[in-house]
């Protein structure tokens, strides 16, 4: 629990009742950052009295920046190809830097060539077969077919990333 401690001589700091810390209003101090984290996580419940407006604003800015970083990470993850689908090759026609005279158009024109800008990646196998050993050492091992673990991890990570995107407030998305 925190409260604002104001000196008779002017100036104030944050008093942490839990740890008996007098925390300066200085963003470079790690305890100050912990106060902001507590305000983000618990809101007014972590403060004895009203949270000062400048402190609340600092917490809001920190939360915004955290959400922005998370959103950018999540969208970058979603932009990666789906391993169960693979990736198609992308070819672009690009100028070589050389130019030739076009008699029809009566002007110099670029010489173009095809460049593979994105290489193709085949989808991974949907399932894999693995050998399962029993606790009974006399029993014969059996085989079981399961979803390819690469797909399982990919699906889980994409789901997490999508959940992050869905939970991101629109102003944060707009700032990305």
């Amino acid at each position: 629990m925190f409260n604002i401690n104001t000196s008779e001589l002017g100036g104030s700091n944050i008093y942490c009742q839990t740890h008996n810390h007098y925390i300066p209003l200085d963003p470079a101090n790690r305890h100050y950052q912990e106060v902001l984290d507590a305000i983000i996580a618990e809101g007014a419940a972590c403060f004895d009295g009203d949270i000062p407006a400048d402190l609340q604003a600092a917490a809001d800015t920190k939360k915004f920046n955290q959400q922005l970083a998370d959103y950018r990470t999540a969208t970058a993850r979603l932009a990666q190809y789906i391993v169960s689908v693979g990736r198609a090759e992308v070819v672009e026609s690009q100028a070589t830097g050389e130019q030739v005279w076009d008699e029809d158009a009566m002007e110099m024109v670029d010489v173009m060539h095809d460049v593979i800008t994105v290489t193709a990646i085949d989808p991974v196998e949907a399932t894999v077969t693995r050998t399962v050993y029993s606790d009974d050492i006399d029993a014969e091992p059996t085989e079981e077919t399961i979803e390819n673990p690469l797909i399982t991890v990919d699906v889980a990570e994409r789901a997490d990333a999508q959940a992050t995107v869905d939970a991101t407030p629109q102003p944060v998305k707009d700032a990305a």
Partner: protein
Amino acid sequence: MTVRINKPAINLREELADLRKPSGTAGEAMLRAETPQEQFNLIGAGRRNLIINGACNISQRGDFTTASSASDETYYLDRFEQNLGSVTANKQHITSNQPSALSNTKSWRLTATSTAAGFMGIRQTIEDYKLFNGREFTASVWVKTNHPSVRFYIFDGSTTVQGKKTAVADGEWHYLQETFTFDAASGTKFSIEVISLSEAGSVTSITTGDYIEFTGFQVELGKVATPFEHRSYGEELALCQRFYYKTDTIIHIIAPRYSGSAGDGNAWWKHPVYMRTAPAMSYHGTWYATSGYGGAPTFGNNTKDGVALTTSVSTTANGVLYLTGGQISGDAEL
């Protein structure tokens, strides 16, 4: 008039033989150096160790020579932060049986008290992180462990790098060193750990009783691990105090009341060194609050240089109180 001068004869074969100096590769490199700066860098001369308290001698926060539970992301030994993931551990400051190559050192040990897939390590964050951006540097440390995957782990604010070398897990002291290069010039911090972690940077299997003990931790620019740089206790303490300090028992701080009115006494407390940032202040122990004494202090305006103290007992205008009996600490750790 003609003057004839005779010079003593010399044996050219002997002169040429003298030019064949018995210098090795390092000696040849020194000879090839174009400038004194190059020679300086080759031998790693000067103030090399960027780790503070690498010899584990400074422990202002307390006496941890008896094993006790450690908390994650908490400082005990000066400048070193515990990093525990999914496991619990005991901490202990070890004062004997350090490596024979390192005299006048102590060591720090973490011992797992639970079994899990996790990590266990100790980290130092270096203030002047820009030193490492785009530079080659070498880390070295003495490690005693029984865990097979203890290595360096570095974080620059966005990129992590795991060491490829691991400490020998035979319960004896071994020297671990590795050279790293940070290509990116965009790091926003620099922390380095000695930690049980897989080469891929993920968790490893940790069992109750697994331990990591270290001392002689050194990080230096360049690709050569030079011998551990010993600094005097006083110098090392001052370096630590830039990030954290705790006083001995205060005999008395005089806290007068100004003439305008009765009320609390006030004083200006100067930190022992200029601190990294304005520190979070705390008081400890029992402060006298009987007549003439000011009770426990509260802290007001705070700078990197000092902090305003206020008594918790009032006095008359022009009265004087003593702040006596407790201790003061300031925390400006990274």
